[in-house]
């Protein structure tokens, strides 16, 4: 092949195209390697072929020197294109976080804008303010008036810790960037018109959220109330929680106070920065039996009337499961329906073994275990087990069958499990942001309820729903009954290995059509009969009362 400048020019053109296409996938080091190779290739291609003997200070060597310098400048231009065009947006918004202090280093231009911009409000569905911005002397102060709802918005701390939660997820909307067309935006930039932020209307009900906190008191735990038909989150309470207003840093004075508060949050052994409702991972305990029951019925292995033997002990390859839940020790044969109502571990260990590792894994995944749950806030990912190998042993399958083993789930996910069973097996995509609205009240976008996945067949779901109702009318969940309404539920107790077990309750309410589902967890809250069950009942009753 002839080497000449035409090839060099073609090569550079190719490189520009390739750089535009792949530059975003390369780290800086890899990109530099590409540049180096490209530079050598271009030089090689463009290098004059004539190998005439060159004299001292010949025309040719001076020209070649010019060629080398030109190629160097071409490489510089390529790198500039990467920084200023191809990778521009990623770099502008790049954020670094200091591992030790949690302090955030971001583009000061954006921080500067954040300090001044009239950021949109975050509102509960009843119109009460969760977050708003007050402009004072050109500086924007973020306010969170209601401590019970504030932390759901996340935090907004431009000078120190950046943004988190809805403040981060919906940053573009709150800043007003997503409001307008590219053309209007251009005009705004040219005329230096500050954008006005959009308001977020949430599905959260502030009175139910406050009620949830009232019920939780100072106990550590979480409450999630979800609209069965839509997947809208109506209450999302976590205790303990933080006060985002104390993290707002518009001025230097606020900085020190915010840093001290942040440090106290980090030092707190109760970890108030962890939103337990979405980020807390707990063993689901007996609440998982609803999933196992649904799996067995859906897979055709059992019906609610199927009878299992439970004489108080089950030996699974030397691993002995002791039954402590039978209401009557003289009865040894139990239907699956009653087994769920009385939370019989020995029966569900057998059901788990009948299902086997594969079906158990499959249905747990169907119900969201180990899956990335799409949501407006960061959600911790649960698990069936840390790996599939765990389920290779029979004792592990038996333990998983009644909700122990290595299972982990967030309260949000367990609320979704209850909601999916109440909603004919359709697990809705959970959401918190209902509408994005301009200051003039014009709706820009609206969240449409969407089915995330059909976890089991409609028939299966109805059978399990009736079993959960049976658990309230005839079983251990009887305390959850509400006059005039249909309530289904399942208690749970999760052994933690240290101290009192965590206590669970999941359930739903209907009139008789199911309306709301709930999940409550109390850390080290003892058995699931008293605390979580009472909280769940109150929440369901309050939600229905408000609906009426």
């Amino acid at each position, binding site marked *: 092949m002839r080497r000449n400048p035409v090839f060099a020019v073609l090569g550079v053109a190719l490189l520009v195209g390739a750089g535009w296409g792949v530059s975003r996938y390369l780290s800086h080091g890899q990109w530099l390697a590409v540049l180096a190779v490209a530079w050598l290739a271009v030089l090689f291609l463009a290098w004059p072929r004539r190998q005439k003997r060159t004299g001292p*200070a010949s025309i040719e*060597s*001076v020209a070649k020197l010019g060629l080398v310098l030109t190629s160097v400048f071409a490489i510089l231009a390529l790198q*500039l294109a990467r*920084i200023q065009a191809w990778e521009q947006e990623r770099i502008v918004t790049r954020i670094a976080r200091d591992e030790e202090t949690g302090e955030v280093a971001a583009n*000061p231009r954006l921080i500067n804008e954040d300090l001044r911009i009239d950021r949109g409000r975050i509102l509960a569905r009843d119109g009460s303010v969760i977050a708003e911005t007050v402009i004072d002397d050109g500086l924007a102060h973020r306010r969170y008036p209601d401590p019970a709802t504030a932390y759901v918005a996340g935090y907004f701390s431009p000078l120190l810790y950046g943004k988190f939660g809805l403040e981060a997820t919906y940053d573009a909307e709150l800043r007003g960037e997503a409001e307008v067309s590219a053309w209007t935006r251009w005009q705004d930039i040219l005329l230096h018109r500050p954008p006005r932020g959009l308001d977020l209307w949430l599905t959260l009900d502030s009175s139910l959220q406050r009620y949830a906190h009232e019920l939780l008191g100072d106990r550590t735990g979480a409450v999630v109330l979800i609209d069965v038909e839509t997947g809208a989150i109506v209450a999302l309470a976590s205790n303990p929680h933080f006060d985002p207003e104390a993290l707002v840093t518009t001025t230097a004075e606020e900085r020190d106070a915010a840093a001290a508060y942040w440090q106290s949050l980090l030092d707190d052994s109760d970890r108030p920065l962890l939103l337990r409702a979405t980020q807390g991972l707990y063993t689901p305990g007996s609440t998982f039996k609803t999933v196992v029951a649904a799996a067995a019925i859906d897979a055709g292995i059992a019906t609610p009337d199927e009878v299992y033997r439970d004489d108080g002990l089950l030996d699974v390859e030397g691993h002995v499961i002791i039954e402590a839940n039978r209401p009557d020790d003289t009865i040894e044969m139990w239907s699956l329906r009653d087994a769920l109502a009385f939370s019989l571990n020995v029966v569900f260990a057998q059901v788990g073994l009948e299902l086997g590792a594969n079906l158990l894994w499959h249905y747990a995944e169907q119900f969201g275990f180990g899956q990335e749950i799409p949501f407006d806030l960061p959600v911790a990912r649960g698990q069936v087990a840390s790996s599939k190998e765990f389920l290779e042993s029979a004792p592990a399958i038996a333990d998983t069958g009644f909700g122990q083993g290595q299972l982990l789930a967030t309260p949000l996910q367990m609320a979704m499990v209850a909601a999916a069973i109440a909603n004919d097996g359709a697990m809705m995509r959970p959401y918190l942001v209902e509408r994005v609205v301009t200051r003039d009240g014009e709706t820009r976008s609206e969240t449409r309820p969407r089915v995330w996945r059909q976890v089991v067949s409609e028939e299966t779901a109805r059978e399990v729903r009736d079993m959960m109702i049976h658990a309230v009318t005839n079983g251990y969940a009887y305390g959850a009954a509400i006059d005039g309404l249909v309530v289904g539920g399942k208690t749970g107790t999760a052994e933690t290995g240290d101290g009192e077990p965590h206590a669970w309750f999941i359930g739903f309410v209907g009139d008789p059509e199911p309306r709301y589902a709930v999940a409550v967890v109390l850390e080290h809250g003892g058995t699931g009969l008293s605390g979580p069950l009472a909280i769940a009942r109150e929440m369901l009753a309050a939600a229905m009362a408000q609906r009426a």
Partner: protein
Amino acid sequence: MTLMSATRPALPRFRWRELQLVVLATAAVLAGLVSLATVNRGALVTALWQDIQASALVAGLFLAASLGFAIVRYRGDQTILPLVATLAGIGLVFIERLQPDLAALDPDLAGLASRHRIYLAAGMVILWLAAAFVPLDWLQRFKYTALLASLALLAVTFVFGTEINGARLWLTIGPLQMQPSEVVKLTLVIFLAAYLAEKRDLIGASWRFGPLRLPPIPYLAPMVVMWAASLLVLVILNDLGTALLFFGIFLAMLYAASGRPVYVLTGLAAFAVASWLAYALFDRIGIRVQNWLDPWWDPLDAGYQPMQAEYALASGGILGTGLGLGQPWRIPEVQTDFIFAAIGEELGLLGTCAVLALYLALVGRGLIIALRTRDAFLRLLATGLAATVGIQAAIIVGGVIRVIPLTGITLPFISYGGSSLLTNCLLAGLLLNISATTERGQPAGRRR
């Protein structure tokens, strides 16, 4: 036209081309200054009208220089001055633009623009004098004096130098501070040009050492000396940028003189080894390398400056924020090492590429001047001077945009700094002077 110039071959025509280009450059500078004065930045301080007027006057010196050349019927190249005027004008506008913001951060920087104006005015005078009056054969004759002066200056800097930001680069004489390495780069080019021109006949010779064919001693000796000198600059003055620049100049000139890539490759390899050693031995250089690969490794401390530069460049995007509308003062040392990032923020990719193109044009013009001279010394001198501008610009721009590790040297003609501005104007003046020797009475306008 042909008839006219044929009848009057001895007198060059009026330098219309240069004047036209300089008018363009001056107009651009004036437009920049006016837009600075009128930009609305709310409550923030903008440049004062009197500052703008003073800068406009200095920009007028470009025109004066060109008219001066025209009046004395100067024979030199007609594009060097416009290129220098454009680059220096961009520098002037940006220093003017940065001053109010920098003064708000640090009151010591309040006199930045006025000092820069004085340096630039002096620079224009020096350019003019160097172009018109310096006898080039003197430079050749006093080559060893130049070398000794270079080494002496470096030694004096080492002994009496003032340390700023960890590098011992400045000499303080009374109220004045100068950066000898800027001057030394010129004396070095002069010495190398003279030396290599003198020994050029030895090019064919080589020196057998067993099975090896070594380059002739006259090439080998200065190579070793230069390598050692660069290394000393690196180690003693703690200045990677100057070391890289000196060595780059040396390699470029050695290649131009010998036409042998082998020398260059050997030299590069030696420099690579030295750099690696320096990297392994000095923490300061290790940090530079870390920052080169990823300044986000220590965002609040060591990586702060390059990270801010990257934010500034990216914030500019393709078109830039517009003059006076960005926030480049957030980069520490933006007026010297990082002025290119300020250009990138406010003038965008178009602006940065235009600046690169201007440097490339200046280098290209310098090399063309070199090619037009018959005299070996002048050819090597012009080559060296042109390469110096190109290499220096590439080193600092490459550092700012993280193609190579950052080394603190100035961006020729644009950065704030007296020594840098004056020496670069002297360099441009010498280039003009060389070009004037080649015209041999031919009107430059005919070379279109």
